């Protein structure tokens, strides 16, 4: 639609205060936190595609009117929460309207006795949690992006919080949804629509990443705040033993609040290792390996920009640090409940960690992690400031497959990028592996190519070893090339729903599955 007419129509439809065509707004909404676009910015470029307008609906009637308009006029619409997505789910498409949901951020009702709350989707996760806490309740969903992500985004991308071992993922916490279909029809599903919270239609929108409609209300499961939470650290001879302990704990019926096991390099970054296996200072060893004195300390612990760039030019050398570090792996564990329950759970955890040759390190490592649990995301901007890039790849598989998958991904990516991992979001059947990787090339174009190769080789390794390519970041545009192998036949079902619900293809086109 031609710009001036779009501007007139949208202002007429929603009112001028709910629409922006400002250059700064259009630039701001031209990307979410997708690292590929951050790399573009390193080279002084802006994303090639920007939105035509940004809308800020304030209630379901606004959303319904907007969707009816977009469908009638064939204007693409892209829902937008807080823009923390890292897979490009909220990237604009040519001529689209960005639908920023953050003004729809009200708590509609709370029923502590029934264990439910109904909330608008634009509420930021941290604010939602604070509101619930006032009533002595919690959602139990604590992603590391909690202060820059929204409830609607969690639902759309099947998010997981750091305490998912205890509370489950967002799909376990979502009991009902109100959705505006692309034509503007409002539909209510699950508990909000007279159904059950296992309403299969809910499963359709959980993970749909805004491609099938816009979420306007979410009914969530809430629980009383735990009387007590407690954290500890455990050390294992190697990650094999640590994984054995995690598996045994999850299969024992214990529901720990958190279980996170760090591989040697991630343990190093977490401050767990200061010496190599032979007793040498790790920084001295790094200098010997890379030929640059003090490089490791500068690069990894102090995030010195030049040192980081230098180190990341030779990722295989940095990755070799893993070979000389002690194999001991750090695990952070947490439990919650009343005093008796906490004691009972710790006794179970002690028994099972001991059976896997784990040593109790006491509360300090656990509480260190707890205090800094949201800090890691903020280190990323310093890496970008150094001209390098950093990203994370969260995959999952079964217990029997976890080590082969971990090793295969390391092998596939370590020539491209500096890579480390931790194991978290544990289930009785398996767990997630959260790879963090950083790379650098002197030009943004070369960095972009490196980024692409690292992802391609990493996901190929995951697919070869039968894991899932995404545990809680979603698919977006980053991983959709791999979806036919991840879930053969999924594209046919998705295509049927897309055609039935959105025959003109206006809702967030080009995401999740490749329908072209």
């Amino acid at each position, binding site marked *: 639609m031609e710009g001036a007419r779009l501007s007139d129509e949208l202002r007429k439809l929603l009112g001028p205060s709910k629409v922006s065509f400002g250059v700064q707004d259009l630039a701001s909404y031209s990307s979410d936190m997708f690292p590929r676009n951050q790399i573009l910015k390193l080279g002084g470029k802006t994303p090639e595609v920007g939105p035509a307008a940004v809308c800020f609906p304030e209630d379901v009637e606004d959303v319904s009117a907007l969707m009816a308009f977009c469908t009638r006029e064939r204007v693409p619409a892209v829902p937008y929460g807080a823009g923390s997505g890292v897979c490009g789910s909220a990237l604009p498409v040519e001529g689209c309207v960005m639908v920023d949901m953050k003004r729809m951020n009200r708590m509609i009702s709370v029923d502590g006795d*029934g264990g439910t709350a109904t909330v608008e989707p634009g509420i930021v996760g941290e604010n939602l949690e604070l509101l619930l806490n006032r009533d002595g309740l919690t959602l139990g969903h604590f992603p590391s992006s909690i202060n820059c992500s929204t409830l609607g985004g969690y639902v759309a991308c099947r*998010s*997981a919080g750091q305490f998912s071992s205890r509370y489950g993922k967002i*799909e376990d916490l979502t009991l009902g949804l109100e959705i505006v279909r692309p034509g503007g029809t409002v*539909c209510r*599903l*699950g508990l*909000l*629509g*007279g*159904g*059950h919270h*296992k*309403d*299969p*239609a809910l*499963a*359709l929108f*959980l*993970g*749909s990443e805004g491609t099938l409609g816009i979420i306007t209300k979410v009914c969530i499961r809430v629980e009383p705040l735990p009387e007590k939470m407690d954290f500890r650290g455990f050390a294992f001879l190697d990650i094999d033993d640590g994984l054995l302990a995690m598996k045994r704990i999850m*299969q024992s*019926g214990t529901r720990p609040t958190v279980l996170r096991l760090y591989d040697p390099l991630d343990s190093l970054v977490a401050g767990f290792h200061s010496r190599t296996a032979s007793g040498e200072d790790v920084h001295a060893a790094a200098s010997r390996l890379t030929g640059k004195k003090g490089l490791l300390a500068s690069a990894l612990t102090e995030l010195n920009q030049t040192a980081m760039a230098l180190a990341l030019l030779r990722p295989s050398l940095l990755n070799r640090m893993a070979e000389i570090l002690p194999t001991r792996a750090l695990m952070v564990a947490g439990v919650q409940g009343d005093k008796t329950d906490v004691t*009972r759970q710790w006794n*179970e955890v002690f028994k099972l960690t001991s059976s896997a040759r784990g040593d109790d390190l006491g509360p300090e490592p656990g509480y260190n992690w707890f205090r800094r649990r949201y800090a890691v995301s903020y280190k990323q901007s310093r890496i970008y400031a150094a001209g390098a890039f950093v990203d994370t790849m969260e995959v*999952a*598989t*079964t*217990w*029997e*497959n976890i080590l082969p998958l971990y090793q295969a991904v390391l092998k596939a990516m370590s020539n491209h990028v500096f890579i480390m991992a931790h194991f978290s*979001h544990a*289930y*009785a*059947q*398996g*767990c*997630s592996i959260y790879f963090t990787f950083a790379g650098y090339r002197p030009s943004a174009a070369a960095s972009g190519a490196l980024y692409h190769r690292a992802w391609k080789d990493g996901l190929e390794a995951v697919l070869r070893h*039968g894991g*899932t*390519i*995404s*545990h*809680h*970041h*979603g*698919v977006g545009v980053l*991983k959709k090339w791999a979806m036919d192998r*991840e*879930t*053969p*036949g*999924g594209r*046919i*079902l*998705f295509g*049927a729903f897309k*055609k*039935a*619900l959105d025959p003109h293809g206006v809702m967030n086109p080009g995401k999740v599955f490749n329908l072209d």
Partner: protein
Amino acid sequence: MSFLITGARIRKELGRRIAGHRLTVSDSGHFVQVEPDTVAEVAFVVDFAAREGVKVLPASGGLNGTALDGWHIRVALKRMSAISDYSADSGLVCAQAGARVQDLQDWLLDKGRTLAVLPDDPSDVELWEFLLSPRSGRIGPRFGCKWDQVFSLHAVLPNGKLFRNSLSPGRATGPDFSRIILMGRGAFGLPLEATVSVQPLPKRRVLLSLALSDLKSGVERAWQVAREAVPEFLEIGLLPRGAESGLPSCVAFVELWGEGRSLSVRRELVLKHFGDVASVFDVPYEKLLGMEDTWQFGPGDTVQFYARRESLDALAAAVASSELQGAARLRVRGFVDNHACVTVDSATAGTCGAFWTRPADFYTSPDGQELLADALGVLDPLAIMGSVPQIWSEPREA
């Protein structure tokens, strides 16, 4: 749908790929029954059906009189009954959909494992039937419903294409289509293989038989027991002829798995929450479960419903003030996620029906039903698999 196609033509076309002895023509029933050996053969059959507009029904012992106009294909999965993978490490077993649930369970028992949710009569049910049926099976607060046990699914879609999801926990790769297939009762696809969670056999089981003062109090306390003690199984019911056998008229059965102190703590929690409305009685739990005349229903006389917590509470209150207590056979189980599954004898069903919802309609909201129907119209425009849900439209025993 093509009304012109004949059984002979269907047999001839399917015979291009499938050996003759695995194809049977029923002239009276107007169907060709095919017994595929492989996933590829099923895909071939359904692909043919989709191209020709021939309806497909899985062959089930409980087809329940499902009547179709014109010639159709019945797919018997009984030759696809292998256990294809097992991981003790991850607590998973993968079986083909034609496996009898009892055979799968026996195989697991040999390995010291068990399915967490079983159908009422596992000997009579193949895995695909168990997964697609809206009937709950024996469920309890600890393990959730049968669909929660399914870790990964391989299915044939109505267009003959195959669907599979990765063997991983907690996927965030688009919508969970396996849930839609399973809860779609067969309209969105037919399961061919499923990987399901298995549990280790418990080191110890605590089995509690409790006499309840009345259904209303028992149900009220059961919700608390479910939340606090999270028993593996929890059932409450009325025994109309209990007095004749010297049994209480209202009973609760609780099963707890585990060992050591945590098991005894949970037992104490159960007794604490049932408190003064229950007393332990000494008829062995398993004997009671097996007593046909009191607890179990014979075939052909039951109706199963689901009830939300508030509906069940209202029903229990209504029973207390009516002649149903002492006359009706009624069994409530589950107490999972604020709902329970209720089985009653047919005579009582009419009286109690106002409180309950039929299994087939229970989960999906009206808007959700409309939305799924819209998508089915695109996925399966000729309704090739559109008749499959009819298999479960009435209770199988009826």
